[in-house]
């Protein structure tokens, strides 16, 4: 029974049920599921710098009738400012109905409500949707919890690392391996509609990008071009894929239709031009090049014209990724250690978000408020996925079953 001392505190008691019924969702019955729903919402809302949630394990339960008629005086006594209540019901067909209500305790009024009907195996999505409603209503930002992450699962010693393509929910749940690890897999990227993943594999000995269709389990090469291909990136509309290809040691960036076809070469410098990330409107691409002598960040028009360097910070700047909001570019800054940083699209207002031995490969949450990256431990080479908010103050490690790298977020699910 915790007392809430923070004035930004959000209380999230267990979601009661109208009738305890068995369900295939976690918990086995709707009563236990109600606690799990509140736990998932609590997990989503903590550690992002905006809220101080208190979860169901530290709060008294509520009656089903209280969901729509909160006992505000009791919550005021606990110094809760916001209150998230909800319920869960099991239908005759096994489907679950989850209600989600957000209340302002001080005002004693309702701020928002939503209801979701989900299959039992999708119960976590109802919790993520509820957390998204709370997050959006209180922060004014777009939601992002109901989304997925593709990444590389790593096992084994440093000199024989097994690297498998894997996917999971944004909070690490519903984990699934896509490849068996016999060929090293790297750098996955979800298509904007979640139907495909573009990633690099050493299948057949050389690094090539494959486009894997999640529904059919089939994959194909992104291009029949001769050289090794790497660093795949989708256009915001999902119609094109950027890739980098080395020909006789010289790497350039190409664009190819996502369905296959003719590639267009976008860069043509004698240096290494690699990566690439579209601005949200699709009009520009930020990429990395060492044409000046070291890795630096450049912006060009989507057709390859007007290439301009934007990073002038000393050291090296790599792996730029344009925020889905368009206002920031996240990248890896290398000056001894590798650190995650952001800058505006003109190269100004550079700020570090992390300060560790080796952090790299930032990608954005769908709402552009959280940057995800991977951290490598010195000597052991062990890797883990981390998330940090744009203040850089709120860092959290994502739970993964094994070591993890190369995280890439997909969009919020419809």
């Amino acid at each position, binding site marked *: 029974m915790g007392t809430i001392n923070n004035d930004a505190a959000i209380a999230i008691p267990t979601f009661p049920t109208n009738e305890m019924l068995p369900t295939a969702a976690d918990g086995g019955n709707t009563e236990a599921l109600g606690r799990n729903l509140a736990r998932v919402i609590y997990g989503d809302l903590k550690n992002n710098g905006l809220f101080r949630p208190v979860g169901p394990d530290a709060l008294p339960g509520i009656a089903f009738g209280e969901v729509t008629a909160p006992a505000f005086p009791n919550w005021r006594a606990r110094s809760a400012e916001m209150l998230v209540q909800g319920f869960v019901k099991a239908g005759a067909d096994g489907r679950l109905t989850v209600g989600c209500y957000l209340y302002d305790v001080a005002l004693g009024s309702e701020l928002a409500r939503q209801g979701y009907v989900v299959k039992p195996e999708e119960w976590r999505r109802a919790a993520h949707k509820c957390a998204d409603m709370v997050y959006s209503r209180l922060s004014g930002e777009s939601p992002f919890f109901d989304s997925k992450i593709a990444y590389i699962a790593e096992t084994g010693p440093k000199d024989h690392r097994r690297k498998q393509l894997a996917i999971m929910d944004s909070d690490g749940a519903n984990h699934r391996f896509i490849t068996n690890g016999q060929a090293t897999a790297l750098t996955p990227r979800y298509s904007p509609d979640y139907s495909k993943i573009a990633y690099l594999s050493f299948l057949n000995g050389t690094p090539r990008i494959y486009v894997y269709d999640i529904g059919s389990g089939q994959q194909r090469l992104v291009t029949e071009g001769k050289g090794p291909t790497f660093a795949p990136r989708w256009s915001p509309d999902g119609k094109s894929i950027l890739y980098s290809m080395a020909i006789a040691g010289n790497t350039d960036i190409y664009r190819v239709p996502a369905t296959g076809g003719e590639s267009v070469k976008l860069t043509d410098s004698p240096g290494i031009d690699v990566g690439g990330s579209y601005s949200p409107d699709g009009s520009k691409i930020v990429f990395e090049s060492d044409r000046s002598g070291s890795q630096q960040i450049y912006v060009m028009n989507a057709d390859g014209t007007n290439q301009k360097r934007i990073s002038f910070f000393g050291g090296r700047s790599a792996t730029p990724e344009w925020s889905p909001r368009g206002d920031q570019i996240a990248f890896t800054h290398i000056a001894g250690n590798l650190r995650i940083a952001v800058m505006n699209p003109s190269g100004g207002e550079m700020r570090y978000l992390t300060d560790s*031995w080796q952090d790299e490969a930032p990608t954005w949450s769908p709402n552009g408020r959280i940057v995800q990256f991977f951290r490598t431990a010195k000597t052991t080479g062990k890797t883990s996925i981390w998330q940090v908010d744009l203040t850089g103050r709120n860092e959290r490690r994502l739970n993964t079953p094994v070591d993890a790298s190369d995280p890439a977020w997909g969009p919020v699910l419809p």
Partner: protein
Amino acid sequence: MTRKIITSKVLTGLLLTSGLALAGCATKPKELPPQPTGATTTTTTTPPPVSQPMGPVPGSQADFMASVLGDTILFDTDRYNIDSEDQGILQSQAQWLARYPGKRVTIEGHCDERGTRDYNLALGERRANAAKNYLVSLGIDASRITTVSYGKERPVALGSDEASWAKNRRAVTITVQ
């Protein structure tokens, strides 16, 4: 079939004794029916070791390792230039390749762990190609050399220190057997 192989060996002038010894294989078919696929392999990989009874099989990876100054050249951070030490090593590799014109090699390009993944794949490719280009400049046919970059994915030295990183920034020549 056998005749062609012998002729090519004779033309190279390098495996003359082995080549002649192979002519003696004509006695073998009396014991066993000919094996079309195995015949070539037999003639090229197991000539009787006349001159070097204890040495590695000529043309083998072991022979390559015993013959060259090294299979690995090293690079400075972010660099891919071939320095004089690298040139000595690659020249010894070129001599071996000239001795065995039927042999092909793969050059693997590698980087240390202190760089980003995509760039290191590109840099490893550039290092492997730098080594390849030098071998080609010494007269080795480019079609005999393939390259592959492993970026920072396959370190040989496992520490996180300058000495380990220096060993991992490398291009390694491996014979295709």
